[in-house]
């Protein structure tokens, strides 16, 4: 069994060596299709993280014109924390708000030189639970807060969140559509590339059939070849997307993206990386399978 596997592997590698251009075309096609898919996955992943973090921070802010004593504030915090939709309530004093503002201004902090913490209001920042980050839940909480005379200056990033979620949905849908199209295109190209190699080796296929090679014996090296090409394409796609991630996303766009509130830009998780490589092999394998479907015959009937 092991000897047989080694034999088929050897023949597949030999086939690839004998048709380097066609092999490279297959590998390249799979690599480009999967790399584009990987870029989309990286974008979706990070925007998803962004919406999650914005969803958490951009919940509801209650501005306090007059800051009551600590005991009263703690009472308010507790009251709001008792809402079922609430996951966390944070009191941000004028001073904390001012420090946060200064930090965000960075090098431009001198713009507010001479001004003190009194320019900013204190606030209560209300984060909602994971299951409650919806338009309806925010509206319910806002309604409840409005009905309470203690809180009247409310701000919530509902519009932003919804826009961001819509953008994420668009990204997912377009990514899936484009990804599906690219995978299909890769499949068609791999199928045709392997068909070309089969045409080039038709004499070999005929000879194999003539001396008593079974269908599986004849097809297996080509299936292994397709899977190997797909595997190489998958690995190349992974390398390519990692390179782009390192050079473009982290170095060039990293600082730009940090402004939006993303602390770190993430690459694909390990399982996705594995899926990319396995996906490449599958594309290659299926491409070979389609190419071989009507190719190996044992004479007309």
């Amino acid at each position: 069994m092991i000897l047989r596997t080694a034999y088929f592997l050897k023949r597949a590698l030999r086939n690839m060596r004998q048709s380097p251009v066609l092999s490279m075309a297959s590998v390249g096609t799979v690599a480009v299709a999967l790399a584009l898919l990987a870029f989309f996955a990286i974008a979706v992943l990070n925007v998803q993280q962004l919406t999650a973090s914005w969803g958490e921070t951009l919940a509801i802010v209650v501005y306090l014109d007059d800051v009551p004593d600590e005991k009263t504030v703690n009472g308010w915090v507790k009251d709001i924390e008792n809402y079922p939709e609430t996951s966390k309530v944070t009191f941000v004093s004028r001073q904390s708000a001012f420090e946060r503002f200064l930090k965000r201004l960075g090098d431009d902090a001198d713009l507010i030189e001479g001004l003190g913490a009194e320019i900013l209001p204190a606030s209560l920042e209300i984060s909602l639970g994971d299951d409650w980050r919806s338009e309806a839940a925010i509206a319910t909480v806002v309604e409840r807060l409005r009905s309470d005379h203690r809180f009247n200056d409310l701000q919530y990033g509902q519009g932003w969140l919804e826009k961001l979620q819509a953008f994420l949905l668009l990204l997912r849908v377009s990514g899936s559509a484009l990804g599906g199209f690219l995978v299909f295109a890769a499949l068609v190209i791999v199928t045709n590339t392997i068909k070309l190699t089969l045409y080039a080796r038709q004499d070999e296929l005929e000879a194999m059939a003539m001396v008593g090679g079974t269908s599986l014996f004849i097809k297996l090296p080509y299936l292994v070849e397709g899977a190997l090409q797909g595997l190489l394409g998958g690995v190349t796609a992974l390398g390519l997307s990692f390179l782009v991630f390192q050079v473009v996303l982290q170095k060039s766009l990293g600082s730009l993206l940090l402004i939006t509130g993303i602390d770190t830009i993430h690459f694909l998780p390990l399982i996705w990386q594995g899926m990319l490589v396995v996906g490449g092999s599958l594309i290659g394998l299926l491409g070979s399978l389609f190419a071989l479907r009507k190719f190996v015959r044992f004479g007309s009937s």
Partner: protein
Amino acid sequence: MIQLFNVCKVYQGDQNALSDITLKIEKGEFVFLTGPSGAGKSTLLKLLYCAERPTRGQILVNGRNITRYGAARIPYLRRNFGIVFQDFKLLVRRTVFENVAFPLEVHGRKRIEISKKVYQTLKSVGLEHRLNYYPLQLSGGEQQRVAVARALVVDPLILLADEPTGNLDPEVTLDIMELFKNANARGTTIIMATHDRNLIRMFPRRIVSLAGGSLAVDDLPLFQGSAGTTGQS
């Protein structure tokens, strides 16, 4: 060994290639299949190794009816045959050794066994010194000898040769015929399609002659005994 009963083959477009052929070839026989171009010689050979299927009739090989063999059984049937073609059909990107080793790989033989058997067979056709050559580096005669070695390496029960000397000069033709004679002497049944009358005269064997897809003559050479069937029975 081989029996054909009322075999007909009609290709698409109503082209009648074979009509009502009934034939029996015994184990160990050497049969010349003759007739002009288009007589149906190649079609008859193709029917034997299931590259074509008969439109009507039955074919028995080694006692088994192969007429309705499915695709899965054909490879195993073909392992009983060695096939030699006029145009050699060698794999040009493989060495002489690899070409001859090929059928043994298909049969799943062990590597060491393959090496030994290939060397022996190439020695028997006088090409052991060309092991690592590629087919296109050889003369036509040498290429055909490689093709014969590829057919004989598996010790086939039946050797089918479709105009194997058609592209060769007379001297090389004699070499190839010697190889066939030796294989026949070892018990291999040989069916050789040819229209070379000189060859048939030089190597008197049973002659099955086709004309327009029908059996015209089935005759034994005079010195071997009485005449067989003449014409279609």
